[in-house]
Each structure stands twice: as structure tokens, then as C-alpha cells.
């Protein structure tokens, strides 16, 4: 299908199905139940899953294939975001031009940074990218305030020109839309206590994710992708095999940067504000963590890693002591307080602690990240399967 082998095609179909049914799958608990706190099926978080998934998939094209660890990838996401907001300010609040320009600007920006940084390899490359990103962040937050909005961020204003629509100075700023369909619009479906929200913006981002994922598969499986993996494996040998690794690296870096820009464009399409801290090293570090957590060099890993980190950030940080008391109200009072006291440091303001423990736990017990977890589970099942049928080995 679409030039993919069977395994890849089924992976793509699986991702497409997950994207399509996420609003249902991510809301496993009825709206009214106490566990509904763990539901993730609301537009903002679903959009974030998808957007950071794109970001991480793109990052993995660079890091997973070539082994070049960029510590400044957030700069491209930030540059894309700024470009997107400016497009919405100047031209139109239709999201398509914004997303396109984000990708292009991030691509240009990554040509510049990549051209210089790729002169070095290993940790020297990492530090060069980090330095560029930190410079971008520092300048965006301060000296470039007229262009970037500084620390408060760049957002839409009523008196923006919006050439295609004509600016208005009264009423409200028009919402970002896809040819009239507003990103914030949702269809809510209430079935027997479950509340499912099908959001326009989410599905737009979802479609983009599927396209991005398909492109990533094609890159992974192409001769180009093979050369990139060869760079990771033995760059020295590759030179003596007649290949100039520099343009390959640069192309890969730019593709990866454009993925980041695409993610940035989608981010401002969903929520039209671009802040400088999107470019900070912590943001670059986050995508590194997402990729490692999910499984470096695997196709689906980075998407899973992105999902897990964003889930923690958005769900665990919102659990407060009040909620805990409510959940454990069935316990006797003393025990209830005890249980809440035990759990409380790990949720709400302590969600970072849980995140840190999870990083350590995953990498200690699952060296291949979340994908390895999946593989192990599958192995357990297939073993069972084999036992049941008592198939001979081979």
C-alpha cells in the first residue's frame, strides 16, 4: 500500500486508527466517574499529543537515523511559531498559510544552523546546536521584542492588518480557522455517561500527523534513509564508499527542522500565541527525552514518548489534595489521610518528581524505551500463543 511493505502499512493504519479514535480511546472513564480526572480526551491535550508527536518524529529522523543529537531543535519550533503568528497577523487567520510559512521558515533557519553546526560531530555538534538555540531564545526574549513580543509572547491583536480579511478594531479577534471551520469548534457526543469531543483543530493536526508519519516511514525505508543509518553506523566507511556525507546530513537536518517548524505552525494554529520559552534548551531537551523515552530510531516510539510526557504534564499536575481526598473517601478517615499523604508528593506540584522517577524507571528497566515494552508484551503473548498450539520450533 502506498509503496509500503505490509508491516509498515499496518503500522501506518494503526496510527491512523489511533488518531481517528483518540477522542474515544483517551476518554476511557465515564464523565461522571472519579477516575475521569485521568481522561485525556479533551481538545487541547489531544492536539498537544499530535503536535509533539510530529515534533518528535521529525527529531527522530535526525537523531534516530544519523545519531546526531541536536540540543537546539526547539529553536526551529519557535521560529516556525513566530512565522505562523506573523502570517495570521498580516495575511489571514486561515491556518493553511500559517502552517506552510512556519515549515518554510523553519527550513530556512535550519539550513543556516545546520550548515554551520554540521561541520562538527558528536558532542561538539550538540553544543553548537544548543548554543544557536540558546542565542535564539535569549534574543527573542529581549532584544528582538518588537518582532517576537518578548517574554510575553507574540499574539494576535484586534488592530492587526489581516490583509485578506480586512482588519477590524471592534468586537473580537477572529479565531484561526480552516476555510471557515474554526479550530476551536467541537462536536460533543454524549453516550451513556461518556462524553466524547471531536475537535476540528485536533483532526486537522491529526491528518497532518498521519501525513508526517507516512513521510517518515518513506524516509526510513528509502535509500536516503539507509545512507543516514549508515552515517550513524560508520561515517568513516561511508566516505570511502563514495558518498559525501555532508549534503546527506544537511538534508536530514533540514527535513527534521521542517518537521519542527510544522509542529510550531500547528501549535499556533491551535492556539495563536508564540512565546520565546518555546526555544529554550529545556524545550529542546524535552523532545530529546520524548524520543529516548519512546525508543530511539523506531517509528512509533517518539510519538508514544511525546504522548506520555504531555500526559504527565497535563494530567498529573492537576491532581490536588482535594481530589485525592475525594478518591479515597471510601477509606476510614485515618487511613484516608495516610494514603493521601503518601500520594500527594507525587502529584499536583510534585508531578516533576513522578516524571523524573518515570524517566529513570523506563530507562533502567526498558533500555529500548516504550517500544521495547510493547515488544516484550507481544513476545509474552506470542509465547503463550506458541504454547497453546504446541508448534515446533522454527
Amino acid at each position: 500500500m502506498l509503496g509500503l511493505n505490509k508491516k509498515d502499512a499496518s503500522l501506518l493504519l494503526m496510527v491512523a486508527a489511533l488518531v481517528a479514535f483518540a477522542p474515544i480511546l483517551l476518554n476511557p472513564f465515564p464523565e461522571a466517574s472519579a477516575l475521569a480526572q485521568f481522561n485525556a480526551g479533551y481538545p487541547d491535550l489531544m492536539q498537544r499529543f499530535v503536535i509533539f508527536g510530529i515534533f518528535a518524529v521529525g527529531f527522530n529522523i535526525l537523531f534516530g537515523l544519523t545519531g546526531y543529537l541536536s540540543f537546539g531543535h526547539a529553536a526551529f519550533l519557535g521560529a516556525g511559531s513566530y512565522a505562523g503568528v506573523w502570517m495570521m497577523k498580516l495575511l489571514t487567520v486561515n491556518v493553511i498559510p500559517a502552517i506552510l510559512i512556519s515549515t518554510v521558515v523553519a527550513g530556512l533557519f535550519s539550513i543556516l544552523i545546520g550548515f554551520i553546526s554540521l561541520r562538527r560531530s558528536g558532542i561538539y555538534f550538540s553544543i553548537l546546536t544548543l548554543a544557536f538555540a540558546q542565542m535564539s531564545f535569549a534574543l527573542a526574549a529581549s532584544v528582538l521584542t518588537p518582532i517576537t513580543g518578548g517574554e510575553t509572547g507574540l499574539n494576535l491583536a484586534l488592530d492587526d492588518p489581516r490583509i485578506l480579511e480586512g482588519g477590524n478594531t471592534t468586537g473580537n479577534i477572529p479565531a484561526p480557522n480552516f476555510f471557515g471551520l474554526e479550530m476551536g469548534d467541537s462536536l460533543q457526543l454524549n453516550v451513556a455517561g461518556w462524553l466524547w469531543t471531536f475537535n476540528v483543530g485536533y483532526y486537522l493536526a491529526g491528518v497532518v500527523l498521519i501525513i508526517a508519519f507516512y513521510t517518515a516511514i518513506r524516509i526510513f525505508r528509502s535509500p536516503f534513509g539507509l545512507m543516514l543509518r549508515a552515517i550513524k553506523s560508520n561515517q568513516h566507511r561511508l566516505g570511502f564508499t563514495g558518498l559525501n556525507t555532508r549534503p546527506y546530513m544537511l538534508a536530514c537536518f533540514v527535513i527534521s527542522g521542517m518537521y519542527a517548524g510544522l509542529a510550531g505552525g500547528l501549535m499556533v494554529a491551535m492556539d495563536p500565541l508564540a512565546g520565546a520559552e518555546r526555544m529554550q534548551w529545556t524545550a529542546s531537551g524535552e523532545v530529546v527525552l520524548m524520543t529516548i523515552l519512546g525508543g530511539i530510531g523506531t517509528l512509533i516510539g517518539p510519538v508514544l514518548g511525546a504522548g506520555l510526557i504531555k500526559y504527565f504534564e497535563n494530567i498529573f499536575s492537576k491532581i490536588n489534595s482535594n481530589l485525592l481526598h475525594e478518591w479515597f473517601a471510601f477509606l476510614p478517615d485515618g487511613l484516608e489521610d495516610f494514603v493521601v499523604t503518601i500520594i500527594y508528593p507525587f502529584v499536583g506540584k510534585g508531578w516533576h518528581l513522578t516524571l523524573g522517577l518515570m524517566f529513570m524507571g523506563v530507562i533502567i528497566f526498558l533500555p529500548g524505551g516504550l517500544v521495547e515494552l510493547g515488544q516484550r508484551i507481544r513476545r509474552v503473548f506470542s509465547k503463550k500463543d506458541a504454547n497453546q498450539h504446541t508448534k515446533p520450533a522454527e
Partner: protein
Amino acid sequence: MAKSNFTRRGVLKTGAVAGAGVALPTIFTASSASAYVNEPTGSSVTLGFNVPQTGPYADEGADELRAYMLAVEHLNGEGDGGMLNTFSSKALKGNGILGKKVEYVTGDTQTKPDAARASARSMIEKDGAVMITGGSSSGVAVAVQALCQEAGVIFMAGLTHSNDTTGKDKKANGFRHFFNSYMTGAALAPILANEYGTDRKAYHLTADYNWGYTTEEAVRTSTEAMGWETVAAVKTPLAQTDFSSYVAPVLSSGADVLVLNHYGGNMVNSLTSAVQFGLRASEANGKQFQIVVPLYSRLMAQGAGKNVAGIYGTTGWHWSLENRFGERYTGSNAFVQSFGQKYGFPPSQAAHTVYCQTLLYADACERAGTFNPCGVVEALEDFEFDGLGSGPTLYRGSDHQCFKDALVVKGKENPDSEFDLLEIVDVTPREALVYDPAIFGGELGSCNPGA
């Protein structure tokens, strides 16, 4: 324990289980179902408290959260009622808001605009919050305010001091009770002139971001109007932790006052450096060298320890206000009492401002008779009130900024406890702080109910 505050879900539980029998899928889009976003349909209403819980401002966020929980208690008729008893508007009856019990959800802004918006959106989209409040920086306040305007809910800003929040980035759905950079300058300058004379030469160190710019400008303008001269103004990176290279040249620059336009950790570190370099013990131009910190908070004073002794600045409110200046500030002591009884220490200015914001929002809903943001906006615009601990106060309609007295404080030489680090020098009456809303530009737009 606080089992009484069931969230919306807890209450929905019975209703939904009963409704499940019907099991006919109901389809509605966000716009068709109600007159405004997240119209509370059950017996409760959900407020979203969005404060920094991680990062360097986590302790400030924690103090805000304490005040929010206290406010919710008082609104629901529990506890001693706090400032409900002294508030000039008597619309609130201690039975929730419009008869609906007040519930809340909490989130973590991380003091990052992106994270703050994510958290606010989850409150609006997932938890059905009808009002978002909180925050501990102007970047976050501006970002979340813009989001609330787009989403169609009310935003009651927490601690945000930049002129932009109700200046160039003001929004119809957003309101600020806290004071701003302009007011700091206006309040501080006369007292500085009085204490240090009118022929001072000032050296500014300014945090290189929006709040820093507006604060530097405000302090410069108002001190220069008093006759001060500005020798230099140097911008320092926001991420800077060691300010020694910025402080070192000050003494030989010909200045005799150092103004630190820094907040939070920036201020703690720059002030510590300035004291280390012996600025306060030095003389310049034949005068005692002085340091000024335009905006003080208790956490900053705690962080800088005894280095704050004798250093002037402004603050939005202080727990000793009513004791010092009497009845004009009625409500202060009521709030300090009920906060202190519950948590064992006095509230900070952040706690005070968010408590007031919660009460003001609730009161506006009562007076408007609806949670509809447009009704609330109308009720809050040009609302004149008293009894919330800051004296007579006006919520100006043209920019949604509160006008109330501002406090000039200085660090105590011999503090009695870690909460008693500042003493009030004087209070600048609100009349002296008024400015023309047009000077900062920006458009309020019109209220957005989201539907």
C-alpha cells in the same frame, strides 16, 4: 479534611448515572447548547486556579492557592467569612455564587506562557471552568488573558505588575486587581525624593524583558520629574544568576542610587551582589549610597534575608496595613485573621490579591445575576467598592485596572520573624496614581461569551 468541596464530577455522578438509562446519544456543538461557554447547569460552579506549582515561583503559587481555598470556603459559607463581612457590596450571601456551590480545579503554570495556556485550556475544555484566575508573572497573565478572551471565559489576573496586562495587551474578559509599574513609579518617587533628596543620580539595572522595560520607564519618568538624574540604565539577561559584573562598575559610575528593576530570583541575586559589593556602606557624591527595589514581595525579602534591611520599594498590600493606618483599610485584619488561623502565618500580597479577585468575581456574578462573561464584565466595569483591605477601590471600565492605594515599604532592620521583613513607610493615595488609559495603547475589544 476538605471533603466538602466535591468537584463538578462528584455531583454530576448521580445525575449522569440516572441519565444513562436514557442512553440516547446527545449531540451538541459547543455553540448550540448554551448561551455562553461552560454555563453551569448543575448545582455547582467550577473556578480554575492556575498558579505556578513548579519552578522558582512555586512558593508564591502555593500561597495563592491557600488564599483561593480560603476564598472558596468563605464563598460557600464555611469558616469565619473573612473579608465577606467587611466587603462593601453585600450581594454575596455565603451560599456559593448564585446559589451554586463553588468548586475548583487547580493547574500548574510553570511560569511559562505555553504551559499556563495548556493548563487553562484543560480547565476550560475538560473541567468546565467558567473563570480562570492566578499566575505569578506578567508573561503568563498576558498569555492566559488572551486565551480566556478567545475561549470566552473571565480571567481574573493574579500577581502581574507589567503595564501591558491592562495596557497594550488588555482584553475585555480580563481584570487586574494588582497595581502596576506606572503606579509603582508614581507612589515611590515622592517618598524617595523626601528621603534621599532631589539631586540624586540613579543607576538602573533592568531585567531584559517586558516587565523590566515598563518598570524602568515608570521609575525613571517619575524620579526624573522629581529632579533625579539617570546616569545609566543597563539591561540584564533574564536568565542571569550572578549579577556581580553588572553591580561592580556602579560605585565608580558617579551614581549614588542603584535601582534594581528585577523581580523574584533576579532581584534576590542582584540585591545580594549589590550588598556584597558594599554599596550600602559606601558614599558617593558626598551622600550615603542607596539601593531601591521598585517591586517587593515577601518571598523576595525572605530570599534576600537581611540584605533588604533599609531598602525602599513598593508593594500591593501588606498584612500590617490596617494596624498601621487604621480604618481606611478595613478588611485587612479580617483577612489576616482568617488566613493566619487556618495556615499559621500571615498572607502575602499575592494571597491578598487573588483572594480579592475571587470575591470580586463572585460578587459581580451575583450582581449581574448570571455567570455570562458579558454580564460579569458589565458588573465589574467602573465598580466602586471598599472593605477589601486596600481602601476605596475602583475597577476602571476603560482598561479593567483597579485603582487603590499603593504601599511604599522598606526592609526592616530587626525583623521579628521570617514574615515580618517589611515595614510600611507610607501609603500613596489612589488619586495620585491615576493615569490616562490611552497612554499605553491597546484595545479592550468587546466581551466574549464564547458562544
